[in-house]
């Protein structure tokens, strides 16, 4: 009987299936591309030798970070899963300058590097890290506070600007600017000036005649949104009457403390983004204000693509050349991050308060630069490697809050 043999066939088939599905290919990790990374030395340097190079590849879909330091001269070979990568490099450089040689730090950064196929070659420009001789941004309190009723409280944001040098510096004429672009929205902004300039949506400048506001080494000054005692209105906030400067916009519903000098609005007015999607720079203006306002406009265009439809957009703002910028900090949130909006030579990382868009836990927190060391006289040396991811402590208690 044919039918009676069927249970036997079936049992054999089941056994075969049970065997066949015991796959043990645990080491397989997706489609790999053999990548060759070629580093290009900074321009106009002679007899360059690189050392202590380390590279980090971050894949944007998976968030996976692959690190390596196995360079042969300027090249590295590595197998990576197919993806879109953010590549950052740090290392030491030695080059000759006339008779002597110079030791310095070198960095490189490139985002949106698509690596697919069997093999790929990527070249990346290195740039020298400059040592700091002017102010740096020590702290940005951009989130604001929350009231007892659970509402947003406005007006108590501030910047803390620190003298990290051994000289007296003058705050007079220091510009502070908020980026036009957001780290959570990436578009093909044309013309693309980011490698050379910073697109600003608002610029304010410290008043003074050049020597009005001296700041000692290791000292700082505060620029507040409103230099008033916010505790009167929100017990969860802070007293900012001791701030050195405040932002003030005439003809707007803005509070003015006459005892505290106002920042001068060079372009637009400073409305600090409280979800932390914008970036900030401080800069020195080497030309007069009128010349700046006349010659440094930045008109850009892009196409906003929504649901397959393309909408032309554009705006007219100001640009600040990177060479004028003395410090920069990029802000973002992990869930929305798309790109950094400064040249990587200014800042190749970003810091945050809150991990998602409109994170409810961000209120009352600031980003603050890490302390490298404190001298016997009590002067702090702050960390400044032009990488905010490494230089800043995210989500910390604001230093002015008690």
């Amino acid at each position, binding site marked *: 009987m044919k039918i*009676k043999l*069927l249970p036997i066939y079936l049992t054999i088939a089941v056994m075969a299936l049970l065997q066949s599905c015991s796959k043990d290919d645990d080491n397989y990790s*997706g489609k790999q591309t053999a990548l060759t990374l070629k580093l290009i030395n900074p321009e106009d340097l002679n007899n360059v030798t690189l050392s202590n190079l380390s590279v980090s590849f971050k894949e944007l879909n998976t968030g996976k970070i692959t690190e390596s330091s196995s360079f042969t001269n300027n090249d590295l070979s590595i197998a990576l899963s197919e993806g879109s990568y953010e590549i950052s490099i740090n290392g030491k450089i030695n080059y000759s300058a006339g008779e002597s040689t110079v030791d310095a730090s070198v960095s490189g950064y490139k985002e*949106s590097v698509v690596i697919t196929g069997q093999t790929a070659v990527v070249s990346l420009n290195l740039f020298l890290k400059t040592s700091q001789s002017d102010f740096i941004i020590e702290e940005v309190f951009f989130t604001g506070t929350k009231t007892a009723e659970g509402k947003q409280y406005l007006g108590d944001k501030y910047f803390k600007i620190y003298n990290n040098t051994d000289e007296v510096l003058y705050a007079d004429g220091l510009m502070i600017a908020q980026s036009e672009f957001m780290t959570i929205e990436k578009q093909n902004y044309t013309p693309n000036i980011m490698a050379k300039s910073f697109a600003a949506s608002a610029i304010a400048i410290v008043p003074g005649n050049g020597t009005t506001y001296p700041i000692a080494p290791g000292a700082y000054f505060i620029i507040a949104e409103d230099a008033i005692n916010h505790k009167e209105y929100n017990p969860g906030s802070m007293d900012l009457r001791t701030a050195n400067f405040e932002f003030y916009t005439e003809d707007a519903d803005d509070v003015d403390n006459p005892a505290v000098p106002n920042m001068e609005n060079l372009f637009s007015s400073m409305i600090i983004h409280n979800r932390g999607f914008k970036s900030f720079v401080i800069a020195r203006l080497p030309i007069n204000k009128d010349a700046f306002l006349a010659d440094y406009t930045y008109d850009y265009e892009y196409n906003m693509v929504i649901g397959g439809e393309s909408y032309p957009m554009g705006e007219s703002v100001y640009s600040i050349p990177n060479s004028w910028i003395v410090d920069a900090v990029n802000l973002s949130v992990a869930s929305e991050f798309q790109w950094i909006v400064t040249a990587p030579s200014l800042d190749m990382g970003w810091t945050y308060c809150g991990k998602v868009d409109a994170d409810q836990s961000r209120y009352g927190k600031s980003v603050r630069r890490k302390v490298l060391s404190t001298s016997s006289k009590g002067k702090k040396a702050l960390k400044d490697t032009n990488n905010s991811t490494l230089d800043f402590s995210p989500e910390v208690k604001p230093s002015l809050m008690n």
Partner: protein
Amino acid sequence: MSFRSIFLFIIFSSGMLHAQDSTSVLLRIHEDLSSVNNFSNLIYANPANQHFARRYSLSEFGAGYNTSSQQTNMQQLGNGIRQFLIHAQSHYKIDTKNTVWGNAYYKNGQRKNVRWNESSDYQVIYPYVTADSIGGDLSFEEYSFKGGYAKVFQKTTLGIVAEYRALLEYRDIDPRPKNTVSDLKVAVGISRNIGNHYAIGSAINLQKYTQSNNLKFFSELGAPAVYHMTGLGVYNNLLTGNKLSSFYDGKGYGANVQLFPKDQNGFAVAVGYNHFDYEKIMTEFQDLIASSILEKGYEGAISYLKKSEEQAWGTKIGFSYTDRAGTENIFDNQTSTSYVKIAEDTKYTNQVTSVVFSGLYSIPNPEFSWSIAPSFNLKKTQTKYIDPLRIIDVQQGIGRLDFSISKLLSQLLINVSTSVEHSWALDSKMKLNDRIKTNQIFEMLDHNFAYLSSAYTKMNLGTRWDYKYDADLNFFVKTDLDYYNYSKNKNNTYFQMSLGLTF
């Protein structure tokens, strides 16, 4: 809801199919409940074979309430369900050559504490659910209609069946998903007599499945990130954040073959293949295809049943193997509003292999019948995500003993059934190569693994009282209680009660 009015209309119009069977209603119910009758159920995947399923016509209309409380479960499924349902079913022999059957139900209820899943039908669409870290209770309404027709032409029988299910799931506080599912299945089949005793049949089936997900947040102060999960707690970073809408576009097809005795007395063999695939599309974001699933399922059973007026015994081996592979698209964010697909990779796999050995012994005398059915199921589930490497493998041995007894009195049929089941955790492993510290996602994986790899003992007690009101009208009350005891003394309980009419 218009759901309800359509449903009630169909239920009441189906009541017109008043069963005109001269056999006593209690005998007809007895046939319906008989474990002998349901022993070789895989052959009914072919609608043509429904012609041979029953001797008698029977229709039932009922309403019920179910509640369950689960101290342990997959977090994505929640930890309990409370639902009200009305249901109707009918198997009607128009004459010796024409059979129609169908069922319909409407459910309205709530799933409790669903975590890491804001989508619906987890068992259909896993692992590509939309999720956030908040979750909560989900309200749902579901209805389903199924209707089939089989007709005999001399030695050949043709059958067709169609089934439609719709589900609406939502929450009225943040996060506020609104999900709608539409699931249509159609099958056509043929069977042909081989000699007087046996028939051979074959059917093909088609499925169209869609689900749309829309999440909303109303809170002024902020919202959690929304993740598009890709399996074993992994998610795509570029799609994380505020991409709140998605659409699952799925289809399935399959074929099966059966060889069986027309009177259910003898050997029966059935094998089937099913294919199901879907794409997850990010509506409101370029209609980007985020991921896709391809599932292939094989199943088969061979059974032998020997029955006479006095007794029946049977034995059966069933097997099933499902291979599910998930492919993700990899994007480059050229701009925030324009992602470009640069590669794809099959990163998620899930295989389930199951073999069931079962037996049956029954004394079918309607006056006082009883049956006992032991079974043993070997089940292996392997789930893997390749980068980062994460694995959950579980092997279970599930032994079960069913016992059912039914007593026919002049006006009353009493049926009591009970079962004891024990699942041995034969082997289980969880490997998470990228585990660094604990976070909510690793806690979820730990919680799910504890559930999947736990041994348990289950006890069931079911009763059904049928009271004959008229020769062809009957009232029934039915209750069912399941109690599971998992390791670490976690207990799951299910209770259901329904009452209705049979005619």
